[in-house]
């Protein structure tokens, strides 16, 4: 009922973890029931260890979170030794997420992922808002094309690209990634934001700016999923604020083939299973399967009145 096909992978469910929200390794999978998670997307790995940003790294506001972790990770060598062996036992496809400052960084991580049996696909994190350098990969189509083409050449697996919402127009970036060999696009990373404590007159985060996530960003991600999926022919994976079964089904209608769950997993580690159960029940009641909904948005000038108040 939930099965879907995304960027070269057959998935049991359209639900995935969002990179950076379910750990560096598969250890938290024990919270989820079999059949609920389509793919495990891991936290970004960079070639060199990164200690991450100074605390505070997270702050909240009604409706969402602001974070600036700074891609803390122990680097590719550690990851190859300590994490990669754990992945071969994982029952769902595992998606490695690659980060870096230069084309060479992305290629180095992609190359390593390419040879790993436990990795089914690679997602390029072109769009982390919380590190210095490399911003042009997420804001300039020619830079994005360069890095995607270079990674495509070294990868024997599906290649996904995670796009940034922090641009005036995402479509040229999306098209450049498609033309350079991406098999799917993840839309989108967190939105650049700032929270301020008026009394101390300081930002709430140690680094100042951070990435906004959670229910507050849902309509923005929904709009971007619609725009991007209308402009490219490769699948789009939605990421941004989904916390309820209805949010996921709406993302499918707007054009997504799969949906990543991130911030919602912080509140309950089994959020993905709760959402999957809710989706099954809603689909069954309506005599549908998930794939019926993908890209089925009826945009005929009339809006839908809210049914419940």
């Amino acid at each position: 009922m939930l099965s879907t096909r995304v960027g070269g992978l057959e998935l049991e469910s359209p639900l995935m973890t969002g990179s950076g929200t379910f750990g560096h390794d598969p250890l938290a999978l024990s919270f989820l029931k079999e059949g609920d998670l389509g793919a495990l997307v891991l936290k970004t790995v960079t070639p060199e260890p990164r200690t991450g940003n100074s605390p505070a790294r997270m702050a909240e506001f009604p409706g969402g979170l602001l974070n600036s972790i700074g891609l803390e990770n122990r680097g590719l060598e550690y990851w190859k030794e300590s994490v990669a062996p754990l992945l071969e036992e994982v029952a769902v496809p595992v998606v490695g997420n690659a980060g870096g400052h230069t084309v060479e960084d992305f290629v180095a991580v992609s190359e390593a992922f390419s040879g790993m049996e436990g990795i089914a696909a690679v997602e390029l994190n072109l769009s982390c808002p919380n590190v210095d350098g490399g911003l042009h990969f997420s804001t300039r189509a020619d830079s994005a094309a360069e890095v995607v083409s270079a990674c495509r050449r070294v990868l024997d697996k599906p290649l996904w690209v995670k796009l940034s919402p922090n641009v005036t127009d995402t479509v040229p970036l999306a098209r450049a990634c498609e033309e350079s060999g991406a098999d799917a696009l993840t839309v989108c990373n967190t939105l650049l934001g700032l929270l301020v404590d008026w009394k101390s007159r300081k930002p709430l985060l140690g680094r100042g700016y951070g990435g906004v996530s959670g229910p507050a960003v849902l309509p923005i991600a929904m709009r971007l999923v619609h725009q991007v999926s209308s402009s490219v022919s490769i699948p789009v994976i939605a990421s941004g604020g989904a916390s309820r079964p209805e949010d996921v089904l709406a993302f499918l209608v707007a054009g997504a083939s799969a949906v990543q769950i991130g911030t919602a997993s912080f509140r309950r580690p089994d959020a993905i299973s709760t959402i999957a159960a809710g989706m099954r029940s809603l689909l069954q009641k309506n005599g549908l399967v998930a794939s019926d909904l993908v890209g089925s948005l009826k945009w005929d000038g009339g809006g839908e009145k809210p049914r419940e108040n």
Partner: protein
Amino acid sequence: MAELAADTRVWTGKVTGKPACGPDTFVLELRLPEAIEPIAAGRFAMLSPAHGEGPVIPRPFSIYEQPDASTVTFLVQVIGPGTQALETVEMGEGVDCTLPLGRGFQDPDPSRELVMIAGGVGSAPFLGYGRQRVAEGAASNTTYFFGARTGDRLYDRSKFENQSFRTVLATDDGSLGFSGSVLDSLVEELDGGRVSREALFCACGPEGLLHAFAALCRERDLEGQISLETYMGCGYGVCNACPVPTRPDGALGHWPWAKSCLEGPVFPLEAVAF
């Protein structure tokens, strides 16, 4: 690599009690759908209202008591949106809880003296810790220092006083017990030889108290452990938002940060730059 504890589960507990306990605090009693093992002192739970209201992320609380195999209680001081949301959950309604999480206090040999130091709701892990010592036959070399701003903030103090270990009370306003800070009362006992420098010292409470405690331990060469109230996003090791700086020469020194949720919330002072 710090691993998630094998016994951590996520539940929806039912509120079976929420009696007030002091001016700004209540005891949240949750009935879990299944029986669980006794939880080591100092470990914690992440709680949020099951009705979905309140902040996007849950809040960490030490386990306070386990009255029976499927009931856990928490000492909740209402100070912000997370705790306010928990206060609105009515009797019979659900609270989402992930527990038990993290690592608790070291369990020293019963023959070694143990000194527990709490400020305000920092008392939560010590009822269980103290009872554990009583069960081990170590009540006579266990002392509990319990301090607060005012006497009515020595939450549930009779519960502690009724235990067979010694309890020393301190209040900033002098309304109950020693007049002054809980650390001043500890220093007085150390100086008077009523507490041994060889004891294991464990503290939980406001950050200011913990900093003063850390300074005292360094100054007098005491072995100390602290339970940190780090702001947490998830509580189970996936979000990387609760970093605690480590000491390069300490047990966690292989990486500049420890995750408070997995490697803590209780840390030996020698391991963290605090």
